[in-house]
């Protein structure tokens, strides 16, 4: 067995199918996108090589930077909401009544398709007939905010279903990580007289730091490239108020028929995400190895 495993050629063969799959589905299209970004192409006629013009235009395009800022806002909110999910997971992991049931309920939004969630929330946010506006009316509000058409709140209005969609995912990850902590450590702390809050903050949290770092990267990267709900609920509008990088890229390519410029934006999105990931990894790197 060890003879097989130490042979480099055998390892290469085992890795090959997955490598091929990833190359064809991910790496090569990435490079092609960067390549198409060098062209002037409307998707139907022939391509025309224009060098870095698209990329330079993108860097000077205020709409692009607006959309980038919206993506960053989403990433920030996602990262901050992780604290809420962690708290919920901590509560669930301790032996409270109904923890099992609650866990399953929190997971339900993850099972719904993005489009279903979008349609649901569009109906909730409807200014005339939506649940939200009706309930606010009971509490005496004269005119409910125009959730999806008021440009100052539309972005935040969409953030809520986005965070709601992924809450279950992160809660589940944290819950699993917390469950992995050996009971003996918790008991030892209890015997030493630690309060539940102290146990949570000083013992459990440091022990799952590795997992927390991973979820931070997941949340931020996932938010930077987020597309689904933005596209279905508002299409980036009104007037670009809820545009994020991915929806801007889609609009350029498919609505304006400017595949060259859209590809350039897409490639820039990739670069931004890579840089952010590297920065996060550097910031959260630590020499400690967690062992229990």
């Amino acid at each position: 067995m060890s003879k097989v495993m130490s042979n480099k050629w055998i390892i290469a063969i085992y890795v090959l199918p997955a490598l091929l799959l990833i190359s064809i589905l991910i790496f090569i299209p990435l490079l092609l996108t960067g390549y198409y970004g060098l062209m002037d192409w409307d998707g139907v006629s022939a391509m025309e090589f224009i060098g870095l013009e698209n990329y330079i235009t993108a860097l000077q395009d205020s709409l692009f930077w607006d959309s980038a800022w919206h993506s960053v806002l989403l990433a920030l909110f996602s990262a901050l909401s992780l604290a809420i999910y962690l708290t919920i997971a901590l509560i669930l992991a301790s032996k409270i009544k109904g923890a099992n049931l609650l866990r399953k309920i929190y997971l339900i939004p993850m099972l719904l398709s993005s489009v279903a969630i979008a349609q649901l929330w569009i109906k909730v946010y409807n200014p005339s007939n939506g649940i939200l506006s009706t309930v606010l009316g009971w509490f005496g509000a004269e005119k409910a905010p125009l959730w999806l058409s008021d440009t100052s709140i539309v972005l935040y209005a969409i953030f809520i279903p986005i965070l709601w969609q992924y809450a279950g995912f992160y809660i589940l990850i944290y819950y699993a990580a917390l469950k992995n902590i050996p009971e003996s450590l918790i008991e030892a702390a209890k015997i030493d007289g630690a309060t539940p809050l102290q146990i949570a903050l000083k013992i459990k949290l440091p022990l799952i730091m590795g997992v927390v770092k991973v979820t931070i990267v997941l949340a931020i990267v996932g938010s930077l490239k987020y597309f689904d709900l933005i596209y279905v609920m508002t299409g980036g509008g009104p007037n670009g108020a809820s545009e994020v990088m991915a929806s801007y890229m889609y609009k350029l390519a498919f609505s304006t028929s400017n595949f060259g410029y859209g590809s350039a934006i897409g490639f820039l999105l990739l670069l931004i995400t890579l840089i952010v990931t590297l920065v996060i990894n550097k910031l959260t790197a630590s020499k400690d190895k967690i062992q229990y």
Partner: protein
Amino acid sequence: MLRKKAFSLLAGLFAVALVLSGCSGSEDASSDGKKVIKFMHLWPEGSSKKHHDIVENIITDFEKEHKDVKVEVEVLSNEQYKDKMKVLSASGELPDVGMTWSAGYLEPYANGGKFATLDDLLEGDLKDSFVSGTTEAYQVDGKTYGLPLELNIASVYYNKAIFKENGVEAPKTYDELIKVVETLDKKGVEPIALGNKDKWTGSLWYMYLADRIGGTKALNSAIDRSGSFEDPALVSAAEKVQELVDANAFVDGFNGLSDEEAKSMFMNEQAAMYLIATWDLPNYTTNEDVPQEFRDSVGFFDFPSVDGKGDMNSYVGGPGVGLFVSESSDVKEEAKEFVSFFTQEWGEKSVTDAGVIPATKVDGESLDLPQMYVDVLDKLNSATNITLYADVQLSADVAQVHLDQIQALFGKEATPEDFAKTHEQALSK
């Protein structure tokens, strides 16, 4: 040992299943010996029941007459259809027969050699069948790349019952319209249903205002570059739009509502007026799924004149969707036959079964048609001008600027002057 065998057997079966499911798709077509025409259209059963049913009937009839041909249908909703067309044309996988819009939308496909020319059909079976001007909109460089199915004009449909309840009458001038809006608003009734998330809906309002204030020339010459978009008439039309918004004419949150949501508000009697084109006529005439009471209470009026200006017989509208044949289709002959068959059948059935206006000439005399349909047809026949929708006339990138600016204008994020300037810049590129 047994577990290992069971596992590898399971894995083997799984792999075989995968391979088979991948294979079976393409086998079907050739194993039957029948030729397959892939047809894509945008009338889903849910939102366009009558249209959908007519298409099904036409396909069944076609397959009966041509036993060696099978038609495979794919149905998408309007916005999805537009997206999918772009994807398919970029990957070179357009269906054999599909739907397209005219003018600016059609151009890249025609110039890129994606659509086949259909002049031979116009010389043959379909000679002289079309209303004048409709096929011209589908021409590029003198060659025809699509055959129109629909001919539409936009009118303001209104709920007569709501109007009567609130003591208002159909307005003939813009000032009367503002008064109607104010009265309804005071009484807590939403005056106009508008779903401007889709943007082309707001564009209808703008185009009519531009047509009334600037005459038929203003908008058209700005677009064909013989004039400028910063023409005072066009700026004035933009100002009027914002006047309407300030008067609370449109439903709450209209800039975030889709056209379907606005339509359902009008259909549920939550709004008094709705500016839409004749493709929606069936909902107010023949569609059995809509309560009879509602259908009876709907009327329409021509867009009002503004400050005494405007030809009431000038309309915003034009040929709607048409059929195209893909240039790279391997069943081109059969596809063209299907298009010819479809157009002729559609010409008859769309009138009697759906109550919409086809692009082929309609003999209104001999058929028993709903009164509203006859009235609209009369208007169409006496129209002095039909201005084609802006987002169809313009090329894709300028059309998108137009649509975005419409949303900005209605949302009061752009001043009328900026609105005009941005258009002028986009058109000058």
